[in-house]
């Protein structure tokens, strides 16, 4: 197995090859071959990553690099790194990608651009794999960007619709804005330490050679990049709109993997942040704010996918909070469990949409009768998300709460608890409204049907993972997860805290049950409250602020530029044209007068000369005689000398 590690660099290339094949062959490729390639590629990677995980768990570690740019004194290398963190990420990414692709066989079966979908999914997976195994920030950044491209392609998959096209552009622009920070971080790093590879930089930080404002700047700028990709406040606005893409794509990218890349980045770069604890505070605060804002907004959502989107943002905020209080292993733990149950929830939602042809929960109801498998798996995912033991989500969320508690910051802890309540509540609300509430007479649920096994199969798989994956980091698993990742502190559990959290979650679920099943307590009261409702429905006016502050001024400037271009630049071009014509007219006259004149003149002079010479031939004998005599005289005079 250890020998396999040396070839880990090839892992991203497998799905990349699948993508290239689809790109090259287009419609000539049979549909099943396109999907088969993708699934086969991912299965291969899945198995390989399991093998790698096994090897690393047994103590293997691999790092290799090759020189890339070598110009005078500048040497940049790129390579890959297999350590506990990257091996876990490999497994997570490949598992979810594989299951999503299997699921898509059913969900996207009627899609015209079936092949391109699989191609884009493969491209994305290749990039994500590249992100998790790269050994330095530069290579990570490059794969990061490719991920952004793949996200753009998938969000804008149905680019004929205006919503999808706009959403894709919005996602790209917002994340790109964050990526500017990432790029600047690279610049700072280059100027300060001259290398991009993790290990050397960490050493320099340890030794104190990389410190001070430069280090703070670099780490915060890296976080800015993470904010973009992981939808932290205020760069979270793209994620809800990204729901315009195909649901399985959303499951893969916007729930499980890509958005987690930001968390991964911070976790990987943790030594940089650790050196300046203020930066960690920033991360924690932003994480908490994000989490709260998103959770509150989720309360007002009727679209099942939008609920999940805001839920994702909220959970990502929690992961950032965990990182901010120093518990990076807990953050990665939650990342893993979240990947599984969020992907599950998205795919289940897709199943629901597929069956009922609507996304509005108010048009559903009593789905449990018609779609039992979907309902069951959804419920498991929802409970896991809410943090109900013994499901996976409980264990990972609890770790985060524990770390927050240990940080002795009551604001953070209180906020996190509130998020727990809200999460349970809105998930309960959505679940009850969609699956258990009595369906109305015109509900779409009446004609719903359960999805095919090719879709429900992955649901079951993910549900299983949503149950068992948590045990690795629990007391039952001896906190193996944390230790595996290198945490030295002994894992522990604060039963009081855990109990309090569970009660909070149950309270949230109970309140939702009362409201939506029993009909008590004025369901959706907050949507009618004059103070709260606007905040929620306008997503705290973030989008409006963006519009007023950034977008409208940009468009205005663009308009000005355009007018200037017409007036000035076109005028210059036209002037050139006029000048050119003027010059050419002069040249034409010159050509006609001088050049033609010379040529014609030459010809004319010859003709004229002939005409004049002709006058001697008068035909008159006396003329000839005269000339004769004159010539004789001349000759006499000349030769008489």
């Amino acid at each position, binding site marked *: 197995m250890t020998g396999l590690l040396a070839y880990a660099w090839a892992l991203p290339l497998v799905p990349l090859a699948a993508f290239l094949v689809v790109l090259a062959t287009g419609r000539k490729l049979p549909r099943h071959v396109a999907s088969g390639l993708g699934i086969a590629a991912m299965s291969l990677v899945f198995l390989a990553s399991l093998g790698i995980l096994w090897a690393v768990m047994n103590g293997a570690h691999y790092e290799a690099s090759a020189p890339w740019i070598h110009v005078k004194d500048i040497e940049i290398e790129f390579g890959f790194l297999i350590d506990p963190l990257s091996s876990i990420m490999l497994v997570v990414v490949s598992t979810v990608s594989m299951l999503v692709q299997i699921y898509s066989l059913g969900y996207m079966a009627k899609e015209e651009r079936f092949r391109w979908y699989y191609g884009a999914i493969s491209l994305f997976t290749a990039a994500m794999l590249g992100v998790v195994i790269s050994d330095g920030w530069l290579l990570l950044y490059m794969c990061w960007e490719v991920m952004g491209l793949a996200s753009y392609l998938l969000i804008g998959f149905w680019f004929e619709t205006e919503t999808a096209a706009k959403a894709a552009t919005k996602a790209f622009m917002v994340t790109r804005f964050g990526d500017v920070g990432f790029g600047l971080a690279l610049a700072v790093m280059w100027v300060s330490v001259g290398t991009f590879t993790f290990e050397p930089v960490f050493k320099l930080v340890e030794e104190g050679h990389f410190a001070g404002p430069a280090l703070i700047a670099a780490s915060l700028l890296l976080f800015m990049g993470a904010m973009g990709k992981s939808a932290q406040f205020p760069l979270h606005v793209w994620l809800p709109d990204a729901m315009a893409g195909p649901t399985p794509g959303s499951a893969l990218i916007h729930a499980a993997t890509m958005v987690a890349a930001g968390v991964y980045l911070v976790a990987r770069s943790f030594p940089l942040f650790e050196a300046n604890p203020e930066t960690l505070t920033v991360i924690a605060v932003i994480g908490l704010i994000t989490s709260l804002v998103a959770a509150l907004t989720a309360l007002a959502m009727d679209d099942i996918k939008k609920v999940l989107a805001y839920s994702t943002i909220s959970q990502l905020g929690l992961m950032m909070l965990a990182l901010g209080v120093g518990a990076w292993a807990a953050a990665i733990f939650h990342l893993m469990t979240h990947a599984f149950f969020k992907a599950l929830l998205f795919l289940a939602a897709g199943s629901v949409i597929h069956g009922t042809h609507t996304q509005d929960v108010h048009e559903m109801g009593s789905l449990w009768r018609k779609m039992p498998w979907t309902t069951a798996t959804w419920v498991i995912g929802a409970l896991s998300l809410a943090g109900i033991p013994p499901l996976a989500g409980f264990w990972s969320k609890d770790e985060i709460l524990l770390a927050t508690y240990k940080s002795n910051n009551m604001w953070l802890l209180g906020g996190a608890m509130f998020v727990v309540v809200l999460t349970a509540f809105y998930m309960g609300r959505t679940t009850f409204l969609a699956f258990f509430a009595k369906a109305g007479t015109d509900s779409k649920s009446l004609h719903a049907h359960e999805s095919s096994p090719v879709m429900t199969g992955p649901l079951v798989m993910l549900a299983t993972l949503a149950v068992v994956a948590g045990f690795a980091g629990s007391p039952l698993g001896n906190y193996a997860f944390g230790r595996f990742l290198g945490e030295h502190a002994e894992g522990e559990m604060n039963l009081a805290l855990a109990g309090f959290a569970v009660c909070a979650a149950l309270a949230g679920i109970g309140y939702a049950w009362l409201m939506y099943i029993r009909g008590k307590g004025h369901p959706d009261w907050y949507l009618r409250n004059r103070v709260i409702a606007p905040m929620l429905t306008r997503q705290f006016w973030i989008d409006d602020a963006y519009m007023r502050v950034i977008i409208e001024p940009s468009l205005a400037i663009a308009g000005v530029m355009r007018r200037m271009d017409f007036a000035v630049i076109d005028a210059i071009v036209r002037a050139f044209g006029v000048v050119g014509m003027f010059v050419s007219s002069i040249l034409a006259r010159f050509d006609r007068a001088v050049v033609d004149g010379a040529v014609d003149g030459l010809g004319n002079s010859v003709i004229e000369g002939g005409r004049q010479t002709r006058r001697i*031939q*008068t*035909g008159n*004998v*006396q003329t000839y*005689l005269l000339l004769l005599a004159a010539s004789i005289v001349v000759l006499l005079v000349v030769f008489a000398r």
Partner: protein
Amino acid sequence: MIGLNHYLFLAAALFSIGLYGALTSKSALRVVICVELILNAVNLNLAAFSAYVAPTQAVGMNFVIFLMVVAAAEVGLALAIIISLNRRNDIEAIDSIRRLKG
């Protein structure tokens, strides 16, 4: 004393006068007559040379005789041509015959 030079001058003068006349005549007849004058001047030249330079040989004089004969023949023919031209067309001016005009 009368020397060769005198005769030669005289002959040259007569020649020149005849030349002038030939060049400034409108009618062909006049030209022919002036040509006669020219020929006479030539005769005189020859005779003078014969007398002063080679008196024992009669070559010059022979030449003069031949020249006279030829002149006579030529005059006859020229006049015949002129007469026939005039008879046909009443042409007076010689310079209206210009077939050689180029």
